[in-house]
């Protein structure tokens, strides 16, 4: 099937003439750096995805397939060998070797380098080049999810010589990868220009040039797309996306993201130590309304801590239905028929403040009097880590699209406080499952483990499960082959323009 499609595409090229075209993409912010060791922000990652490759590739369907590593095998519980793909060339002409890989991962891990994404390789105990084409990674404990970590843009493989020679300039003036596009220039706060790498190991690359523009205003980004000045707009604001859906000149490419927003309880503090109270509040909050009002419907009520795009997400779970009557009953069962007063913390994020207000109004209906308090970010993090809160609003992005990343930090009892579990809720069975998930290689077994874990979390309700969101990307109608990735780092080499 795939071969036939390729043939058709090749024929189209042969007859239509391979036309060179520039693809202009707009996103909401400028990049920070094109060195994956200098930043961990989304706009930069979206560009780096085009320039660099990773050892493992996570497809749009979240399959983990070989990338710069042609294959890998697990030597023992904690030791993995990766065979480097032969014949891969960096944009500066250097061949890719195992030592580049070891250099990259060690530099990312090095506290002195201060890489914001170092946490992604926290599982590594050591990395070394066994020979020219083999890299050995030893992990701190059994850690099967490592493959999804090694597919994240932040673990993109760099060229040791280029990084060392460029020094300070690496990531701004000098950027060298192995990916489908090579770096041409970066006009600060304006645009990044890339051009096709004709020697890419992965196959043919569609666009001859790719221009990433930074257009801050959401409305303006939409207007530029409608006017045809850009070919693809990432992450339209909900209102503009609604409009784009009905525009015949545009094609939507919507995708559910890896983000879940939630309100956490302090489960060690009364009355939130009673599961009935936590369930009651889940029944009293209408997540549907939040999705409709704040996201214009561009999201889904959450059923679990991880979105449906994450590997391990349990599709059978149901969201707590909006049922104030049941909520009142549960409160009464917990001996709180008269309601109670509590606080809800948020940082000064406007969307979160709005969520807080909607929740405040809804909880008032079942007799819970909520005082919304807006805290400064660092105070917010410190105080929630210390357990000084009643309820707090946060979001979590499962960046690796693997359940381990979305559950372990947030629910394992070893992670109480600043490590991520700010609800201070735990269960022995859940701890067991989460540890098992890191050790289990068989994918079906892993799925079963995470399904059960989410059932427990859903029933115990340490959170108000609010919602996931949809990233509303849109292209001009003449753009084909754009397939959005749930992580937001969409690959562009397959895109065509007619």
């Amino acid at each position, binding site marked *: 099937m795939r071969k036939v499609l390729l043939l058709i595409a090749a024929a189209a090229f042969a007859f239509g003439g391979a036309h060179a075209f520039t693809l202009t993409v707009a996103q909401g912010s*400028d990049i920070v750096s094109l060195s994956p060791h200098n930043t961990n922000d989304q706009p930069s990652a979206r560009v780096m995805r085009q320039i660099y490759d990773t050892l493992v590739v996570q497809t749009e369907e979240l399959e983990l397939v070989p990338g710069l590593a042609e294959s890998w095998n697990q030597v023992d519980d904690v030791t993995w060998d990766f065979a480097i793909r032969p014949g891969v060339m960096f944009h500066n002409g250097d061949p890719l070797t195992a030592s580049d890989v070891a250099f990259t991962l060690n530099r990312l891990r090095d506290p002195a380098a201060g890489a914001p994404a170092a946490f992604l390789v926290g599982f590594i105990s050591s990395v070394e080049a066994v020979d020219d084409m083999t890299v050995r990674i030893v992990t701190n404990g059994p850690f099967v999810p490592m493959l999804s970590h090694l597919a994240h843009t932040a673990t993109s493989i760099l060229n040791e010589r280029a990084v060392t020679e460029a020094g300070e300039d690496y990531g701004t003036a000098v950027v060298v990868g192995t990916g489908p596009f090579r770096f041409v220039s970066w006009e600060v*706060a*304006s645009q990044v220009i890339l051009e096709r790498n004709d020697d890419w190991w992965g196959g043919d690359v569609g666009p001859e040039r790719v221009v990433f523009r930074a257009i801050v205003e959401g409305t303006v980004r939409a207007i530029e797309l409608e006017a045809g000045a850009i070919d693809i707009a990432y992450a339209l604001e909900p209102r503009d996306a609604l409009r784009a859906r009905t525009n015949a000149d545009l094609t939507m490419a919507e995708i559910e993201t890896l983000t879940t927003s939630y309100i956490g309880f302090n489960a060690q503090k009364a009355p939130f130590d009673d599961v009935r109270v936590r369930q009651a509040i889940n029944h009293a909050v209408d997540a549907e309304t939040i999705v409709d009002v704040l996201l214009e419907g561009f999201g889904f009520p959450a059923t679990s801590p991880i979105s449906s795009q994450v590997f391990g997400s349990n599709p059978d779970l149901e969201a707590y239905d909006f049922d104030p009557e049941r909520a009142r009953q549960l409160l009464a069962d917990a001996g709180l028929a008269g309601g109670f007063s509590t606080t809800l913390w948020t940082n000064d994020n406007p969307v979160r403040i709005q969520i807080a207000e909607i929740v405040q109004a809804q909880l008032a209906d079942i007799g819970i009097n909520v005082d919304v308090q807006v805290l400064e970010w*660092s105070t917010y993090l410190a105080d929630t880590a210390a357990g000084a809160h009643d309820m707090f609003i946060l979001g979590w992005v499962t960046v690796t699209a693997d359940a381990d990343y979305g559950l372990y930090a947030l629910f394992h009892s070893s992670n109480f406080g600043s490590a991520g579990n700010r609800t201070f809720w735990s269960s022995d069975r859940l701890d067991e499952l989460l540890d098992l998930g890191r050790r289990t290689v068989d994918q079906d077994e892993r799925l079963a483990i995470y399904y059960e874990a989410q059932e427990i979390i859903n029933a115990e309700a340490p959170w108000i499960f609010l919602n996931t969101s949809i990233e509303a990307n849109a292209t001009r109608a003449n753009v084909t082959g754009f397939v959005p990735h749930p992580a937001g780092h969409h690959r562009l080499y397959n895109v065509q323009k007619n």
Partner: protein
Amino acid sequence: MLVPLTYARPVHWGEHGTKPALIKYIFRRILLLIPILLGVTVIVFGIMFLTPGDAAILMLGENAPQAELEALRERLGLNEPAYVQYGLWLSRAVQLDFGRSIRSGRPVTGEITARLPATIELALLATLLSIVIGVPLGVLSATRPNTAVDHSATVLAFGGLAMPVFWQGLIMILLFALVLDWLPPSGKLGGWQYYVLPTITLGTSAIAAITRMTRATMLETLSQDYVRTARSKGVRERSITYRHALRNAMIPIVTVIGLQFGALLSGAVITETIFSWPGIGRLAIDAIRSKDFPVVQGVVMFFALMYAVVNLLTDILYAYLDPRLKTRYS
């Protein structure tokens, strides 16, 4: 934006009428700038120093180990008393070294100089526009007081002063980019088209201020004795307006242009945000939002420097155009 109508600004300098005096004045004016800029550094450092939030946590993230945080604090001098920290900061700031951006890890000065030209371009264009439109409009108003021309100019000027930059920007994008599709809505990708909307948006309040100022001073000079004398001698009205009156009116106009430059720099912050203009105004907003204090400090100092240079130039021009030089010959 805060002082759109404050026309008069006392300028303190002594008697001078000859060239050497002017040079001496310029020299003194530059010397005076040094303590003032030093004062600004105290304010800028003080504001950021008083800000809650731990720079070390901001840089390393809240999950960083305590030991690393402590090491970074030591390295950044955050454990020193305030005056030592200020001294350290100042000794680098005078060499235009404002440290590194928390967000990007790059030197702040580099981040600023990469974007400075875009802001200067925009501010100069807006200034130019405001002079080219404001001065003739003011003259027209003053030479035909209480006519339809005068009234329309006044209405325009008052409207321009009252228009919030951010609102005007949005409306202009909507009208000229979306409805009429004449101009690109945002960005700075080379063509002249990209300059039109931001320049007009930024320049509007300056146009208004300069129109008002020109009108007022022209009315005043047109009623002066030497103008009456010239008139009685049969000098043509046109020549009176431009040769005599406007020349003398230029002095306060020059001052208001200098003052407006400050308002323009302020307006640039919002204009650049709306139009995705790659200048330092937008950099400032991004830095404030991400609590990137070294960048905020650097940008504010650069703004102060630019404003100081422009004010210096205005004052020099002012001294050069000093009316006592002119009136002596009339």
